[in-house]
C-alpha cells in the first residue's frame, strides 16, 4: 500500500510530476555528459599506455605524460636495464610533439609516435587501410581518419612534412583520438628519430617486459638503483601521471567534475522543492494516517517511496537521453563514454539525490499534528 499511495500521490499532480522528472532528468543528463566527457578524455589520454605491452616504463626524470617525455634516454640506460635480472626485453619508443605541414600549406601540431611493431610493445591498432609493412616503406607514416581535416589530407597517398622531413600517408588508423587535439601519427622508430633530428640511440621511453614469474616490485627496485637519471614507473603509475597532467594540471578535469556537481546540486534542489510541495499538499492525508495510528516511519516510507519512484522514472528517461547524446557525439573530437559502472553510479546518485531531497519533506511531516484531522 505504501507504494500504491506513493504512486498515486505522484501521478495525482501531473504537472508537478513533470517538473520533478525534468529536474532529475536534467541532472542525470548533465552529470552523464560531464562524467562521460571525463571518461572519454581519460580513455584518450591513456589509450597509448593501455595498449602497450609492458610491465614497467622507464622515463626521463619528470616526464609528465605520454606526450611530454622528451627524447632524453640513451642506449646506456637501455643496456643497464637489459642487464637487470628478471628483464626479458627493453623496447624503445620515441614520442614527441612535432610540426605537421599540410600539403596545401599551413601547419598544425601532431604527436609523432615512433615504434617498431616487431618488438611487440606498441603498434598502431585499428588499422583500416594499409599494414605495418606499408608503414615500414620509405617515408611512410599512418594517420587517423578522424583528423583528415586538421591534417589537410584526403587519405592514403597524400604527402606532408613532419618537422625535418617529407612523409607519405601509407596507412590509416580509425578513431584513435588525442586528448591534446594533436593527432597521433605512427611511424617506425628510426624514422621518428630522423624526422625529429634525434640521435639514433635516443628514446623517449623504454618499455620493460619481464621474464615470466619475475617480481615486478623487485625488478623495479633494482632498475631504480641502476638507472640514476631515469624514473621507473609501473603502467598504472604512468597512466595516473598522464591523467593528472592533462585532467588536473590543465583544469579540464576540474571543470568537468565541477559541471557534474552543479548538475547534482540543481537536480537535488528541484526534486526537493517538488517533493516538499507535494508533501505539503498531502499533509491532511498524512495527518489522517497518523490519526489512524500509523508510525512516523510508515509516513517516511511513503515520502521516500515517492522520491524513489521519481528517481527510477527520471533515471530511465535521463539515461535514454544520455545514450542519444552519446550516440551523436561518437564522431566528434571528444566522444562521450558510458560504461556499466557509470550507469550504475548514476543510478546510485539519483537515488541518493532523491533521498536527500526527501529530507525537507520528512521534516515537514515530523511536525504534523494529528489533531488537525478534526479541523477541516
Amino acid at each position, binding site marked *: *500500500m505504501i507504494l*500504491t499511495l506513493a504512486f498515486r500521490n505522484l501521478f495525482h499532480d501531473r504537472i508537478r510530476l513533470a517538473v520533478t522528472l525534468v529536474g532529475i532528468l536534467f541532472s542525470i543528463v548533465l552529470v552523464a555528459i560531464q562524467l562521460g566527457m571525463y571518461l572519454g578524455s581519460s580513455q584518450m589520454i591513456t589509450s597509448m599506455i593501455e595498449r602497450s605491452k609492458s610491465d614497467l616504463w622507464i622515463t626521463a626524470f619528470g616526464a609528465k605524460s605520454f606526450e611530454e617525455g622528451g627524447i632524453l634516454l640513451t642506449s646506456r640506460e637501455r643496456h643497464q636495464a637489459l642487464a637487470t635480472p628478471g628483464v626479458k626485453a627493453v623496447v624503445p619508443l620515441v614520442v614527441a610533439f612535432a610540426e605537421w605541414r599540410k600539403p596545401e600549406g599551413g601547419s598544425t601540431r601532431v604527436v609523432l609516435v615512433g615504434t617498431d611493431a616487431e618488438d611487440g610493445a606498441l603498434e598502431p591498432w585499428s588499422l583500416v587501410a594499409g599494414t605495418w609493412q606499408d608503414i615500414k616503406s620509405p617515408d611512410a607514416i599512418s594517420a587517423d581518419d578522424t583528423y583528415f581535416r586538421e591534417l589537410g589530407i584526403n587519405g592514403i597517398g597524400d604527402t606532408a612534412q613532419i618537422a625535418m622531413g617529407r612523409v607519405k600517408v601509407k596507412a590509416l588508423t580509425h578513431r584513435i583520438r588525442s586528448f591534446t587535439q594533436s593527432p597521433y601519427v605512427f611511424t617506425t622508430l628510426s624514422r621518428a628519430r630522423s624526422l625529429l633530428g634525434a640521435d639514433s640511440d635516443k628514446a623517449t621511453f623504454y618499455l620493460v617486459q619481464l621474464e615470466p614469474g619475475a617480481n615486478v616490485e623487485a625488478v623495479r627496485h633494482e632498475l631504480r638503483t641502476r638507472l640514476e637519471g631515469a624514473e621507473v614507473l609501473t603502467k598504472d603509475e604512468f597512466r595516473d601521471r598522464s591523467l593528472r597532467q592533462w585532467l588536473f594540471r590543465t583544469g579540464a578535469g576540474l571543470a568537468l567534475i565541477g559541471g557534474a556537481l552543479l548538475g547534482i546540486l540543481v537536480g537535488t534542489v528541484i526534486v526537493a522543492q517538488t517533493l516538499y510541495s507535494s508533501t505539503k499538499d498531502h499533509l491532511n492525508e498524512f495527518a489522517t494516517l497518523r490519526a489512524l495510528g500509523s508510525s512516523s516511519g510508515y509516513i517516511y516510507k511513503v515520502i521516500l517511496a515517492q522520491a524513489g519512484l521519481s528517481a527510477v522514472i527520471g533515471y530511465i528517461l535521463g539515461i535514454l537521453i544520455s545514450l542519444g547524446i552519446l550516440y551523436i557525439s561518437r564522431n566528434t573530437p571528444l566522444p562521450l563514454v558510458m560504461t556499466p559502472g557509470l550507469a550504475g553510479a548514476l543510478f546510485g546518485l539519483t537515488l541518493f539525490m532523491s533521498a536527500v531531497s526527501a529530507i525537507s519533506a520528512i521534516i515537514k511531516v515530523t511536525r504534523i499534528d494529528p*489533531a488537525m484531522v*478534526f479541523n477541516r
Partner: protein
Amino acid sequence: MTTPVLEAVNVVKELGKGAGKVQALKGVNLALVKGELTLLMGPSGSGKTTLLSILGCILTPTSGIVRVEGEEVAGKNAEELAELRRKHIGFIFQSYNLFPTLSALENVRIALDVIGRKGYQAALRAEEVLREVGLGNRLKNYPSNLSGGEQQRVAVARAIAASPSVVLADEPTAALDSENGHAVMALLARIAKEQNRSVLAVTHDPRTLGYADRVVRIEDGLIVGEERRPQGLDAPEITDLTKRRKANA
C-alpha cells in the same frame, strides 16, 4: 457493571499559549462501555472535539487520567500514542478524510496496512467490511465518484476494519443530508451493538438522538448532564424518514 474500555478521570486540557490560552476542558469524567452508542452533545466551542481528541489519544490531557483498555495514557510519547490508536481506536471525521487518490477498497486497506495487516487477507477483510456497510458494489469507486453518505460509510468501514474496541466520530452526519445522516447513525448504532464495541459520536444534530443508548451533554468544558435512552422507544426521525420515502415514491 462492565469495566469501561475508555475512561477519562478529571481531565483538564489547556489549549493555546500566552494570552490566547484557553481551558477547553475543566475536569471531565467520562467512561465508555462496550455495546453502546454514546452521543456527546453541546454548543459550539464547548470542548467536544477536544475531549474526543483526548479520548482518542491524539492529544494528551494537561492533567487528569485517561485509560484505554485499562492502560494509562500519561507519559506516552507520540509513537506510543500512535500504537494505542492503531490497537484500540477507530476514527470517523466530519469531512470523511478519505484519500482521494485511493479507491474505496484501498482506503480501507491502507488502514489495515498501517497496523501491519497486508496482502490478500487484508484485501478480503477490507472487502468484507465494505459489504457490511452496504458498499459491496462500490469497491473500486474513488471518493470523487461516491456520494457524501457513501464516502462516510467508507470511512466507517475504515474505522472498524481493524476491529477496534472504540470508535470515535466527530460530527459524522454534519455534512450529510437527513437521509444519509440517518443511515450513518443507524450504522454506528449497529456496529456498537452487533460487534460489542463502544462508539462515541460528537454531534449537535438532534436528528441523531433516536439512535443513542446514552446522551452526554457538555458545556464550557464540563459535563453538565447525562441521560440513558431506552432503545427503540422514540425515534421520531425514523418515522419522518419513512414518510418522506413514501412521499417521494
